[in-house]
């Protein structure tokens, strides 16, 4: 189990929920779970999001492990210059 914090703009795809509890032990599984609970999130997640796990931002590293007590945030995708 892990708690995932969504950004507020995603509210419209999750029946107003911004804190979602999912069963997952990696970032990738967490994202899959989110989509299976809220299929409307799929295009957003497919287009790319960044995820912060315990304060570390991971972009595209779906293998990153998450623990039940991990702090998880979905963020707008970013890339650098």
């Amino acid at each position, binding site marked *: 189990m892990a708690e995932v914090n969504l950004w507020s703009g995603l509210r419209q795809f999750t029946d107003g929920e911004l804190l979602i509890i999912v069963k997952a032990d990696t970032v990738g599984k967490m994202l899959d779970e989110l989509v299976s609970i809220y299929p409307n999130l799929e295009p957003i997640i497919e287009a790319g999001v960044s995820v912060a796990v315990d304060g570390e931002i991971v972009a595209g*590293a779906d293998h990153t492990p998450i623990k039940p007590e991990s702090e998880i945030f979905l963020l707008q995708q970013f890339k650098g210059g």
Partner: protein
Amino acid sequence: MAKDELSNNFKYIGTRPNRPDGLDKVTGRAKYGADFNAPNMLHAAVLRSPHAHARIIKIDTSKAEALAGAKAFVTRADFPTGLEGEDFYLQENTIAGDRVLYDGHAVAAVAATSALAAKDAIKLIEVEYELLPHVTDVDEAMKPDAPVVREGAQDHSVPEGLPPNIVSYMDFGHGDLKAGFSEADFVMENTYKTEAAHQGYIEPHACVGQLGQDGKGEMWICTQGQWFIRKMCASVLGLEASQLRVTPSEIGGGFGGKTTIFSEALSLALSRKSGGRPVKLVMTRSEVLRATGPTASASMDVKIGMKKNGKMTAASAVFRMQGGAFPGMAPTGMALECAFANYQLPAVHHTGYDVLSNRPKSAAYRAPGSPMAAFAVESLVDEMCRKLNLNPIEVRLLNGSREGTKSSFGPTFRKIGLIETLEAAKSHPNLEVELGPNQGRGIASGYWMNHGGETSISMALGEDGTVTLSIGTPDIGGSRASMALMVSETLGIPYEDVRVNVVETGSLGVNEPTHGSRATFATGKAAVEACNGAIKEMCRRAADKWGIDPEAIDWFDGAAHPSGPNAGDFPPMTIKEIGRRMGRTGGPISSHHATTYGGAGESFGTHVVDVEVDPQTGKTTILRYLVVQDAGRAIHPSYVEGQFQGGAAQGIGWALNEEYIYGEDGRLQNAGFLDYRVPVASDLPMIDTIIVEVPSDNHPFGVRGVGETGIAPPLPAIANAVADATGQRLRHLPISPPKILKAIKENS
């Protein structure tokens, strides 16, 4: 290695050796994008739209085709159809379909036997246009009656009822904003604007493309990322990525602008149409400015609440950004994530709009979004400090993010170095200098989150015990030196015994470009991992020879040493010895590492600038400039300082002079270095630097990316200094002399 085990006791890390590619680059031998030629090569030229928005009625190439030396022409009809999403936009930006969407949009291209012949042929192509209404300003583009750049481009995030040029919407935040603002003693809100700036790399885009009818191709190109080029060109042309081999040249600057494609696929398309002859395509400076990707322009509302003592209670921001005629290009989300990252805020909210306009497709530019955000937020913080008569450094120390702070964008910060940069800035001698008349001092901080990303690397031991490292991130500012230092440190061998090669797409797995301040972090980390793999193998070879357990061997000083109960039983076996014998002790020794890295340590910086403003002409002179930034660990301090100084110079240019100027006709007015005014040597003072080292706990040496943060603080720092010198607050960049003089006159 955990952070508490980090040692400052390095032999190579932190030294300043000559960069390995230095000799080639001071003798003119280094080969850049336009320096490559192939046998039987043709030269390309591109016909570009003179209109901001028009329908293409007809393209007639018949006169051009009759010209001696003209060998092949391409239009959109020569490209596959049915592409979707970003692939479609890349193709549409490569060459226009039924409409041109901005001044400079490619319409047709030709390959000829010489560059002059290609240029002549272009002039003979006749295009009939039907002009359409256009819009280039972000605020204008958001109006309900604005010309529509692209129908049906809104994504699912856009709430119903918003005008069609708003193609993406976002909002995020936390805490009770209303309560936060009502708790404040003082609330201030203002609107800020920044204009589009170009990366301004001195080397124009250049490539040689070759593509046969069998779908196999080659490209030689100046790029930040050869695999990105491969993937994008393959998508645009309908090729299989693996059949296209992309070799990066040395690169003459990129700053984000060479992470994508603009016209490159045209060289391959022309090659395919001319029987597979290689086709060289080199942009002119004017093409670079008109048709590659500058950054977005921005219009931003920011509101902050403060207690009398400067403690912030709440903040909100609404950012509107245009990234050209293509959705998804404005860095609105990243700008918002950076906006309040410096501050501990109990309540914060962000709203963002990605807006289309008839401008070129925006690309990344050094910390995309962060400079605009910093300009808006750090200007407002300074305005409030002035009103409340508070010291701007103290207010930042009071509110500054630190380990454990819940960041404005959500996650809790790990170990970060903002406070350390503020403390270091505070005690720098520049702050002791007394200012004269018409002089002012400005301070601002900035943030960039940094990036890890897809990384693949190889190292191989030579027969003489020296090491070759193959990396996939082009060396844009001395990163070969940093890689060699990290390898030397890990293996315990001399710096000179390491050769670092930037290789083509056939030699490694996929690498993301040199972007996101990731090269020294991610490629460096992978290099250390690869070295550790090689050390394990070298220890095994020694163990075999000595007949002991490999676990009972320590590697240091470039040699395997028996340890524990075997300590001293055998003389150390050096890497040279292992290399010499490796053929018969088990074969070549090489090591590979490939992964996608997350967790790049973020970097904060604080800048302090002194300016003098001529009250009669509004001209700003930079007197002193200080950059303080957290590097985590400076591998090669000279190149870290160089990143700080270069970022500051670009930010100074953006603050004072640089801007995309569009006329009423929607055409770019300043498509050259004469009027797109980047700083020249005599515009700048020496740029003082302090490297703060708060090591990242996610890199073996503590590296944080340093490339990007430095461009954010100069924009507000200069606005703040100008306000200090003149009493005038300029909220629209660039702070050009006419704007300052107008403000002085109007308010005096």
